[in-house]
C-alpha cells in the first residue's frame, strides 16, 4: 500500500437565496508519483464520488478552468503539485479544497463566473486601420503579449478584496479586465479610447494597489505594475492633469 492523502472537499449547492449550503467531506486516496491536485480529485470521482463536480479542460495550465481554493489559497488545481501541497499541509491534517469564494456557487467546486462574460461584452473591441498587413515592432508586441497571455482563470478576481470582501462587482471591473483594457489601450494599432469607461463604469479608482492579484496570477502577468498603474496614470493625465486638459481644450491633443 502506498502513501495516502486525505482531502477535505466542499460538497454542496446554493439554497433558494443563493447562499451556499453544504458540508466538508473527507476522502482518502492512495498517491501515485507526480500527482497534481486535479489528479486527486479525479481519483476521488473514479473511486467513490462520481458526482463530485469540478471544472477542468486542458490539465496543462492553459485554459483556466480548474480554479479553486487549495488550503485557502486560490490556484489552478492542474498545476498544483501534491508534493508541494503535502509539504505545506501540517502533519496529520487533511488538504482543504473549496470553490472560489468570491463567486456564487454552482455546486461543489464549481463557481458561477457568468459575471465575467457579461462584463466582457461591455468593453469596446479593438479599432484598427482597415489596411491589412500591420507593421509594428516586437518590442511593441511584447508589451501587449504579456496581457494576452491571460487564461481567464479569475483567480485574481477571486483574490481582490474590492470584490471578495466588498462585493463591488457592479462598480469595479477587477484585475482581469484591467488586464484586458491595458491590452486594448496599449495595442500599437488601436485608435479606440476607453479611459472614461475605465475611470467611471469600471471604477479603477477603487484599486489601492495591494498587488494580491499579481501574486496569484498563474500566467505570471504583472497585473498591478504593468496594467493597472499605467491605466491609472493615463486616467490621471486625461482627466486631472491641468496642462493636459488645457492642451486638449486648445486642440493640441486628442
Amino acid at each position, binding site marked *: 500500500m502506498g502513501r495516502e492523502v486525505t482531502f477535505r472537499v466542499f460538497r454542496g*449547492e446554493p439554497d433558494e437565496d443563493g447562499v451556499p449550503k453544504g458540508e466538508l467531506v473527507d476522502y482518502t486516496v492512495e498517491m*501515485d*508519483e*507526480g*500527482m*497534481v491536485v486535479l*489528479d486527486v480529485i479525479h481519483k476521488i*470521482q*473514479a*473511486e467513490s464520488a*462520481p*458526482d*463530485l*463536480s*469540478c*471544472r*477542468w*479542460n*486542458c*490539465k*496543462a*495550465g*492553459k*485554459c*483556466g*478552468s480548474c480554479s479553486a481554493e487549495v488550503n485557502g489559497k486560490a490556484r489552478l488545481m492542474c*498545476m498544483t*503539485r501534491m508534493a508541494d501541497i503535502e509539504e505545506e499541509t501540517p502533519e496529520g491534517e487533511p488538504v482543504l479544497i473549496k470553490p472560489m469564494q468570491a463567486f456564487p456557487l*454552482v*455546486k*461543489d467546486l*464549481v463557481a*458561477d*463566473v457568468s459575471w465575467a*462574460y457579461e462584463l*466582457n*461584452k461591455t468593453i469596446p*473591441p*479593438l479599432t*484598427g486601420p482597415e489596411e*491589412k*498587413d*500591420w*507593421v*509594428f*515592432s*516586437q518590442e511593441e*508586441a511584447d508589451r*501587449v*503579449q504579456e496581457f*494576452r*497571455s491571460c*487564461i*481567464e482563470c479569475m483567480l485574481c478576481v477571486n483574490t481582490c478584496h474590492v470584490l471578495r470582501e466588498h462585493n463591488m462587482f457592479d462598480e469595479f471591473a477587477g484585475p482581469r479586465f484591467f488586464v484586458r483594457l491595458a491590452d*486594448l489601450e496599449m*495595442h500599437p494599432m488601436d485608435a479606440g479610447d476607453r479611459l472614461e469607461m475605465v475611470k467611471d463604469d469600471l471604477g479603477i479608482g477603487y484599486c489601492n494597489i495591494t498587488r494580491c492579484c499579481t501574486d496569484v496570477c498563474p500566467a505570471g502577468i504583472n497585473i498591478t505594475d504593468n496594467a493597472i498603474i499605467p491605466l491609472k496614470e493615463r486616467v490621471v493625465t486625461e482627466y486631472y492633469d491641468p496642462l493636459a486638459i488645457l492642451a486638449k481644450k486648445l486642440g493640441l491633443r486628442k
Partner: protein
Amino acid sequence: MTDVRNHQYDVLVIGAGGAGLRAAIEATRDGASVAVICKSMLGKAHTVMAEGGAAAALANKDPRDSWQTHFRDTMKGGKYLNDWRMAEIHAKESPDRIRELEQWGAIFDRIPPGLKGADGKPLKAGTISQRNFGGHTYPRLAHIGDATGLELIRTLQDRGIHSGMDVFMEYTVRRLFTTDGRVSGCFAYNRADGTLHTFQGKTTILATGGITRCWAVCSGSWEYTGEGHALAYWAGAEMGDMEFVQFHPTGMIWPPSVRGILVTEGVRGEGGVLTNSEGERFMFNYVPEMYKNEFADTQQEAQAWVDEVIADVTATQRRPPELLTRDVVAKAINSEKKAGRASEHGGVYLDISWRDEEQVKKKLPGMYHQFKELAAVDITKEPMEVGPTAHYVMGGVKVDPVTQESSVPGLYAAGEAATGLHGANRLGGNSLTDLLTFGKRAGEYAAKAAAETDGYLEISQTDIDAVVAETLAPLNRQEGENPAKVVEDLREMMQEKAGIIRTGALLEEALADLDELEARGEKTAPGGGRIYNPGWHQALEISAMADISRMCALSALAREESRGAHTRDDFPVPDRSHWGKVNSVIWLEEGEMKIRHDPCPPISAELRALLDASDLSEEE
C-alpha cells in the same frame, strides 16, 4: 412529463473552438441569428491548447514561399489521400484568414529589423514572423511564443461576443434531429443545471473537434470523447478516413500523471535533438525515401541549419531529420523502444538545453513552465523524456470542399470534426488555419442556405421523447458500475489494440471488446442528481466513444497497408496500386456500421504538376 425548453435560430453552431467561433462570426455577418452551443465555457475549448502556430504561406519570413508550395507540402504530408480541392482552398485562403485575425486583435510575433531573404533583399521588419515546422518547406507558422491557440481563441471570442451570437455554455448536444432527411435541430442538456433543451435550426454546423480521449495516452482534454463525430454518424452522415489517427511523437511520459501532455514540435523547430538511451541521434536512420533529398544526412549539416535558424537568416542547408513528419518520427521512437534503446521511463530524450537559457525561455515559455512545474525538469539544463501521444484525428465528417455541407442536407462540418484536408497525416500548424478557412466557409454557406429556407422543420415528438428517456436513464439506475471504470477500460483497450502499431488480429479483438464495453456502458450507475454531475455526463459519453472507436478499428482493419498515421505490422509497406488511391467511407444503415472505399477524386492536371513527380510515379 419532463420539461424541455425549445429555442429557434437560423444557424446552430455546435462547438466554440476555432472552427465554431469563426463559423459563427461569418454567419452573423451575413445576418443570420446564431446559437453557439458548447460543452465547456467560452474560451476554454481545445483550440486554447494549440501551441506551435498556424500555417499560412504569407511569405513574410521566406519570400520563396507560395500557396503552391504549401499545397504541395500538405498533399505530400497526407500521402496523397487528401481531398486536393480542400488542400488548394486552404493553401490559397489561409494567409487572408491570418491577416484578418490580426485586424481583430491577435498579436503575432514580429519579424525583427535587419533580416535578409534568400534573394539578398531585406525582409519587411515588423510584419508577422513565421517559424519552421515538420513537413513545411519554408518557415510558415505564424505564432505567439508557444501559445498560439490561446491567442486565436481569445481573438475570436472577443470578436464573437460583439457580433450578436447567443452562446449556450456548458450545454452538451446528444442528438441531431432529422426531418424528411434534412437536419432540423438538436437536443442538448445543460451541464450546470441539468435542464433539457431542443434547438430548431434551419442549418446546423458541427465544429465539435476531435476524438483522441478514446486512447489512454492522449494530448486531448475531457471534451475529446468524439460525441460530435458520433452525432453526425447517428444522423446518417458519411464519415471518411477514420483509420487515420495521428500520434504526436512528443508527449510527456513522466511522471505518470502527466502522461500524454503535449510537448510542442516547436522544440524541434528551435533545434531540439532526439537521442536514445545510448546517446545516439537516431532520426538520421529513419529518413524515408520520399524525403531523402530534403533532409540533412550528417549532424554537421543539421547543426548548420539550426545555426541559420538561430541567427534568423534564411536557411540554405537541409533541415534536421527531427523535423520529418509526425508519423515518421512517432514510428521511429516506437522502433527505438522496441530495440531496447528507450529512455529511463520508456521514451526517448529530447534535448534543447544546449541552447542559450534565456533564448529557450523566450521561445518556449510554456514548455519551460510545463516541465518545471509538472515534472521538476529544467529544460534549459537537462533533456526531456518524451514518447508518442494520440493527438489528432484526420478522419471525420465527409464534406463538400467548397460549402462544407455533409452528405445529410442542412448539416455542415468544419475543423477537426470534418475530414479531407489532411489525408493520411496532418502537418503541424495546418489545423489552426483549417479551422479559420473552413470555419469561415461553413458559416458563410450555412447562413446562405438558412436565408433561402422558410420557417423551421417540425421535430418529431417521438424522437424527442426517446432521447430524453435515454439521457435520464443513467440517473434512474440504482445499481451498476462507476462509468469512469468503463471509460478507463475502453481507453486502455484502444491504446493496446488500435494504437500506433496495428495488426489484423488485434483490431478484430478490439471490435469484439467494444461490444462488451458498450453493453457495460449501458448499465452504469453514476448516482447523484442532474446538477453538474460529471459521473452522469461520463455515463452518457460511452456510447459515442464506443461507436467512434469502432469506426477507427473497422477502417483500420480494412486498410491492408501502412500509410501515414496508419501502420499495420502485418502489412508494413504502402500499397500504391490500390490503397493509395482510395478513401474509406463509413455510414450507419439500419442500425449497422457499413464501410466502403471510394476512389480519391481526380486531381486537375494543373495542380498535379505542382506535386512531387517522383512521389507520384512511386504512387502509380
